[in-house]
Every structure is written in structure tokens, then in C-alpha cells.
């Protein structure tokens, strides 16, 4: 083994119902290598540190430039994108683990379905057509566009849910991603038509009441989305909505 080799320690699982096990790999280092290209080395030559030929490590990736959100994993304990994590900035052995908040399907591959169903629950879209033409939408000020843009970059990667101490199997919390997207669709003038439908989810059992203000979400978000600002604003909206609907009853 050359001195420039890098050590990877990976938490693996052969199938959904199987048990986890750890496996180590030594791979040759190349300049500018990221965690994805390190995993590709294993794919090329799936031989573990003991020299045994093994099944190559499974993980998800698409864009390789931190816009798709598929390659989220725990790298040396903390959740981040494998594509934007450079190997020479990491302590070795580099420990790779699948995210814990989501069901693990195989090795580093997790099922992120809960976030997509959360988007359905909060009606994460703008209704632009109905049974009649809805006409052109209102203009949006450039300030509002700038603010909304940050939330539009959410790539459903799951880092915020993984780092949140209140998103876990014992809690019904929908998670910070859905709260950020609720703010995003509520601030759009056409999207605002469904504001109350979204707030109904926010004040429900799985809603904003589960937030404990640890503010990890905003720290780990690879897109630097101001999730805690969205949460504080939604707190205000949700409090008003809940009080008003109670008074109207």
C-alpha cells in the first residue's frame, strides 16, 4: 500500500431486513478526490482491506454538483453531501454511514419517501389551473423573488431531518424541509390561496409544535436555506391561524 492511500470504513447492509456490518477499504488517492470518486474506486475494484473480493458498495448520486440531494450520507459522523466533500480535508479512516432517520435499503442507500409525502401533505405546489382559466398571476417584487429563491433551492436531501433531534421514530414531526417549503409556497401570491390548507398541517400533530429550536437544520443545510427564519415566521402564522380558527368556531 502506498502512503497516499486512503482508508474508508463503511457501514453496510445487504438488504432491507439484514443486519448492519462494517467493512474497510483501502483505495489509491487522487488529487481533488471527493467521497463519490472514492466510492467509484471501490466500484472499479471491490476488494476490501483484507484483500477479499466483495459486493461493491451501493450509494445514490446523480448531479455530482450539490443540486440533486441524492448523495446525502453521514461522513465522519455528520450528515453532508458526498459529492461536495473533498477527501483530503477529512480525518482518516473516513467513516461512511447511511442516514439514520430514513429506512436504509442497502449500504448507503436510504428511502427518502417521507419527504416527498410531506410535500404532498403541505400541497407543495402553486395551483395554476382549475376547472376555469385562472389568468395571469400577480407580479412578484424583486425583493420577494430574492427571498423565495433561497427556499426554491431545497433539494430534498434530508440533511435537516437527519440532524434534527426531534425527527425520530418516536416523534410524529414532519421535519424542517416541509416547514421551509410551506413558507416558500405560502409567500407566493398564487400559492397563498392555499395558505390555510398548509397551515392546517403546520398546526397538526406532526407540525411545527414538534420543533425544539435546536437549530441544527440551518447549520447542516448544504444549500444554506434560512430554515429557522421560515420556522419562526411559520410560528407566527400558525399561532394566528390557530387562534383565529378557534375564535371562529
Amino acid at each position, binding site marked *: 500500500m502506498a502512503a497516499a492511500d486512503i482508508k474508508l470504513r463503511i457501514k453496510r447492509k445487504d438488504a432491507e431486513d439484514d443486519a448492519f456490518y462494517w467493512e474497510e477499504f483501502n483505495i489509491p488517492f487522487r488529487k481533488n478526490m471527493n467521497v463519490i470518486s472514492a466510492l467509484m474506486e471501490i466500484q472499479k475494484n471491490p476488494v476490501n482491506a483484507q484483500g477479499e473480493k466483495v459486493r461493491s458498495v451501493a450509494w445514490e448520486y446523480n448531479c455530482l454538483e450539490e443540486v440533486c440531494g441524492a448523495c446525502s450520507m453521514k461522513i465522519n459522523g*455528520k450528515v453532508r453531501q458526498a459529492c461536495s466533500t473533498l477527501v483530503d480535508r477529512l480525518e482518516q479512516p473516513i467513516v461512511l454511514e447511511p442516514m439514520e432517520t430514513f429506512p436504509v435499503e442497502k449500504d448507503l442507500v436510504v428511502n427518502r419517501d417521507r419527504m416527498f409525502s410531506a410535500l404532498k401533505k403541505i400541497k407543495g405546489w402553486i395551483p395554476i389551473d382549475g376547472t376555469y382559466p385562472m389568468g395571469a398571476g400577480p407580479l412578484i417584487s424583486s425583493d420577494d423573488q430574492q427571498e423565495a429563491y433561497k427556499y426554491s433551492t431545497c433539494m430534498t436531501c434530508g440533511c435537516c431531518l437527519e440532524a434534527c433531534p426531534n425527527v425520530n421514530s418516536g416523534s410524529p414531526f414532519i421535519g424542517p424541509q416541509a416547514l421551509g417549503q410551506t413558507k416558500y409556497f405560502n409567500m407566493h401570491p398564487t400559492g397563498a390561496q392555499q395558505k390555510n390548507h398548509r397551515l392546517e398541517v403546520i398546526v*397538526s400533530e406532526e407540525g411545527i409544535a414538534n420543533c425544539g429550536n435546536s437549530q441544527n437544520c440551518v447549520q447542516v443545510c448544504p444549500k444554506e436555506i434560512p430554515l429557522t427564519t421560515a*420556522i419562526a415566521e411559520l410560528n407566527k402564522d400558525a399561532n394566528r391561524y390557530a387562534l383565529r380558527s378557534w375564535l371562529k368556531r
Partner: protein
Amino acid sequence: MQTNTVVPLSSSRRFVLTRLHSLAGLIPLGLFLVQHLMGNALAIFGSEKYDEHVQFMLSLPFLLFLEIGFIALPLLFHAIYGIYLSFISKPNAHVYQYKRNISFLLQRVTGIITFIFVIYHVWAVRISPVISGTEVNHQLVGEHLANPFMMAFYIAGVLSTTYHFANGISTALITWGITVGPASQKTVRNICFGIFVALAALGIGSLISFVS
């Protein structure tokens, strides 16, 4: 596709309970805590001042009603619901060592310490003297605190109660949608740390004055 009426999806019980939890901590419990620490600080100015204050508090009209309605019930609700909230969270401050995340863990730890402390404290200087017919005064509290272990327990109790209250103010301002952005939240966090230091100093100063 679009429905015209908003149908409640599920109960908003949890939402209402968390808002009441925040409110209970701030208004009755927070106000009482400040009043209590100020009252006890009279001990710094001598045993007569302190005994006078105790007699005044005991002479308040509808005292039992105030104690139960304004303190005991909000306290039990805040504590029991808070313990439930602590146990459904999975603190991870050892991995994600951010300031707010450490405060998140401390808020839960100090909450539990405070609850244990308060139960003992209420028993030792309120309920038990009533049962035995002993008068609560400067001398009784001084004898109580002469035991160094008791003094250490009280200092721990004061530190965790004041931290829990001060940090609770900063998160309550988020829960009520007042501090929205990161800069205002940071300013409030710093002010609240100042509140913690001031209240803790006041409380510990009063404790020490009982034995000196």
C-alpha cells in the same frame, strides 16, 4: 383538485399544549421565579428584612388559591409535559456541537434537575413546616443550608432554574414568532445569557448570605 373549505386534518392538541407549555413557563412560573429570587435576596440585607417578607407573603389573601392556581398547576403541567418532550427528542450535541444545539440539550437537562430540586424545595420549606407547625424564618433556612451538601444542592438548583428560565425566554420569542431572523435571535440569546448570570448571582448571593 382544489377544495373550497379547509378541513382539519388531525387534532391540533399537540400544538395547543406546546403553546400553553411555553406560556406557563413564561408568565406564571417566570414571574414567580423573579419575584421569589428578589424576595429571598432580602436575606442579604439581614434576617429581619427576610422574616418580614416571609410574613408578608404568608399574609397574602387567597394564598392557597394563588399557590395552587398560579404556581403548582402551571408548574406540574410545564414539568410533566416538558419531561414528555425531553424523552421524545434524541439529543445529538456530541455530534453536532453548535451553540443552539448544546442549549437544546441543556434546556432538557436543567428542566429535569429543576423539577427534582423544586419538589424537594417545596417539601422542605413549605409543606413540611406546615405539617409540623414550624415557623419558616431566616434561622430555619440558615440551619437547613449549613449542611454543605444541601448548600451545593441549592446552588445547583438555582443555576439550573435560572438557566432554564433565561434560555426559555429566548426560545419562547421564537415560538411566538417575535424574533424571526438569525441576528435578532442572537442578540436575544446574548441578553438572555446576561439575565441568567444576573439571576444566578442574585440567587447564589442570597443563599450564601444565609450562612454567613
